[in-house]
């Protein structure tokens, strides 16, 4: 049943979900196409029913799936097809469908039930049998509780790490002042940019000075993750300096200069 219908059908549905960019479903479908479905179908084709153990199949399913992505990517590249989510997905789904069909054909010809991952199913069956034979208390204390606690602990570790990393990043505010010459000769001009990644809005003052007493002032107020830009035409070449001041400060907070031609 699995190889006949479920696996190729899943691959086709997954490729459609990748194509249509359905949120969340796209991620699940993409992960299945990248790590599970092609490898699962190929294991069914390459190996007889009892040739592999459960752990071997667990390794081979993602390994062959990734091989499909890599070798398929090379094939697509050589064929002049752009590598994208859709082309990767269609290739992986195609391999899955063809592999499932070959597996089914071979199963009918040899009379052997070649299925996707029988070793895996047998292992699951064994675990299920163990589960049924164990008492409720044993099940809870030996398997369910440790598994749940482990998941919670890993989640807590991730939450703490992500939280502290984000806090550290937020604490390090960045204020960038830049100036680049964007025109020369009669069209000479500079592009002035100010951007901040600070948590709180702030009032700034920018003073631009150039040759022949050229001067211009700006007073942008920037919030968090904001950018301010201005193109400034210059009447004459020479060094142009832009000084950035915070609030009423008299010492430049940032300073850039460009020798304009």
């Amino acid at each position, binding site marked *: 049943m699995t190889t006949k219908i479920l696996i190729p059908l899943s691959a086709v549905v997954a490729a459609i979900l990748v194509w249509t960019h359905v949120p969340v479903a796209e991620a699940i479908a993409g992960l299945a196409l990248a790590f599970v479905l092609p490898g699962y179908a190929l294991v069914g084709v390459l190996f*007889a029913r009892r040739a592999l153990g459960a*752990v071997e199949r667990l390794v081979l399913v993602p390994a062959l799936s990734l091989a499909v*992505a890599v070798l398929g990517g090379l094939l697509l590249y050589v064929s002049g097809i752009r590598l994208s989510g859709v082309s990767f997905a269609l290739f992986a789904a195609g391999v899955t469908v063809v592999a499932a069909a070959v597996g089914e054909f071979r199963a009918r010809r040899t009379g052997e039930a070649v299925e996707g991952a029988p070793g895996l199913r047998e292992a699951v069956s064994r675990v299920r049998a163990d589960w049924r034979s164990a008492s409720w208390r044993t099940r809870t204390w*030996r398997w369910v509780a440790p598994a749940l606690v482990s998941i919670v602990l890993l989640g807590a570790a991730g939450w703490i790490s*992500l939280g502290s990393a984000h806090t550290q990043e937020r604490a390090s505010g960045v204020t960038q002042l*830049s100036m680049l010459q964007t025109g020369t000769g009669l069209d000479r001009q500079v592009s002035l940019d100010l951007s901040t990644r600070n948590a709180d809005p702030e009032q700034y003052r920018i003073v631009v000075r150039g040759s022949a007493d050229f001067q211009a002032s700006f007073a942008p107020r920037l919030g968090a993750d904001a950018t301010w830009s201005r193109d400034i035409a210059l009447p004459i070449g020479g060094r142009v300096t832009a000084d950035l001041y915070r609030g009423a400060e008299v010492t430049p907070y940032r300073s850039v200069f460009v020798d304009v031609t």
Partner: protein
Amino acid sequence: VTATIVAPPEAPDAHRTRRGGSRRNALPVGAVVMLSTLGVLCVAIGYAAGRTGAAYGMVWYWIGQALVFLPIMIRVLSGPLTQTRAFALVAALTINGYALKWTYSPDQLRFSDELQHWTATGTVMRTGSLFQPNDALPAAVHFPGLAEMGAAVSTMTGLSLTASAFIVAGILHLMCVAAIFVLIRACGGSPRLAALTCVVYATGLHFLFFDSMYVYQTAALPFLVLTFWALRRWGTPHGPIAWSGFAVAGLVSILMVTISHHVTSLVMLAALVGFAAIERSRRSVIAAAVAFAVVAIWIGAVAPEVISYLAQPFTGMFGSKAGNGSAGGSPVWILLVQAVGIIGLVIVFLAALRREVRRRRRVAEAADDATGTDAPRPAGVTGVDAWWLAALGGGLLFFLGGGLRLIGSSGPELAARAATFTYIPLAVVVAAVILSGPRRRLVAGGVLLAVLAVGARLGGWPPSWELLPGRYLAAGAERSIDPQGIAAASWTERYLGPGNRIAADLSGWTLTSSYGRQNPVGDVAQLYDSPRWTDADAELADRLGITYLWVDKRLATSTPPTATLFYGDPRTGERTSPMPLANLTKFDDAPGISKVYDDGAIVIYRLGAPE
């Protein structure tokens, strides 16, 4: 050939059953896994403390590291295991180990090698094409396996490139350890031997970080092991379908290794040739020949430049002391801890050799008794014997590779990189010796593994001075990849466009080549090493085609922990104090230089006028 066990055989459980059966007394696997996972939480608390500069972080770190490793090691040593339980322990150790790596930098990739491959993957996604130039790591252009994996996952799932990289690296790392597990099982090893081999491998210098980073070696390693697994299983009778299946799996693995990583493909080739020489069977010769053909065709037709790239570290061994940006030497006390572990490994290895020599002598004497001394001896070594000999040979290479540490500036890094491969066969030998002895050997083995694990945490990656993540550190590897640097590097891509020749210190080099997609230049220490901009500096910059200068004024605030600041730094080892601030502000007064970017710490200068 029917495999029985990787020699030497495990000791019977007599010493355990005399005490009433340790299996009954051993902790349940679920509880062991839970304890190990608790260690991840402790380390995460330590990392969080490190980010704030709190001193107690290191205590949590070591408690956590002990909890992650020791319960699993003790459970594996304490008694027989079913395959399911053994694999559950190995999987838990690997997943928890990977969680330690992820929680170190959970929001973004910070390791320079990872950023190089992050850039390569981004290029595949952006261009939809392979073999595109990558100034961050030119050699990786010709080995696109990992970039394809990352691009496939990211584009198919819609997840960010960084999240996809974390997922791909984690699954590859788990695949690698699981592949070692199934290889030992395929060679007839018990579940417990397979599990202990993986536990020993987890004490390797690079297990926690380099072997689980988003780097091309991580992509190639599991397929390297799977090549040998397929070779082993190819010889076992399972009918025509399975026979061809193992052959195809082996061929696919050889292709994947070759497409993914140059060094691993050469190691694979050497190992297959070596194994064919030992076993002299038809299948091993075929496997070596196929690997030779695939690797030769790939390197010859696709990646000829890699030959000179791979030659660089070897020429560097006998050349100058110029730094390459690696972590530098370790403190003496760390080297002592590592030395104790290495001595332990030598003792275990010698025990294995002695046992093997005795066994062979006994077998020879028995054969002579049976057939007479004039009877011809078989030409090759067959069956499990060949695999055991290969493990011993690989283990010997581990110690020979360790000798590289003593040679030149590239020696320590080369030795550590070589150990990634040679530690696999050595792990088999160590595990087999530990399990084949009496109870006291199990205890001694446990102590040895604990020492090795501590040595690996101290002497591996991240280096001892950044075991915990923390605030910015000049030329501090991951500690210098901070929001300010990332913002500046991103600015270069957005405002200057990619591919500019830019001079930078070590962290600037990493940032501009990855986030900035620039073409950073090495050997530029001279430009930063004096308080005045001279004609010689201008001439050097012109000769190197430098358009922009990346100047991080924070280099004047702290001493670089590796005593080096630049790629190809001629003063490697001599930078034992912060760089004078005048060296970094001199560019403000230099003629013909424009200051185009300033964020307070990082300043970017343009040399000459725009074209």
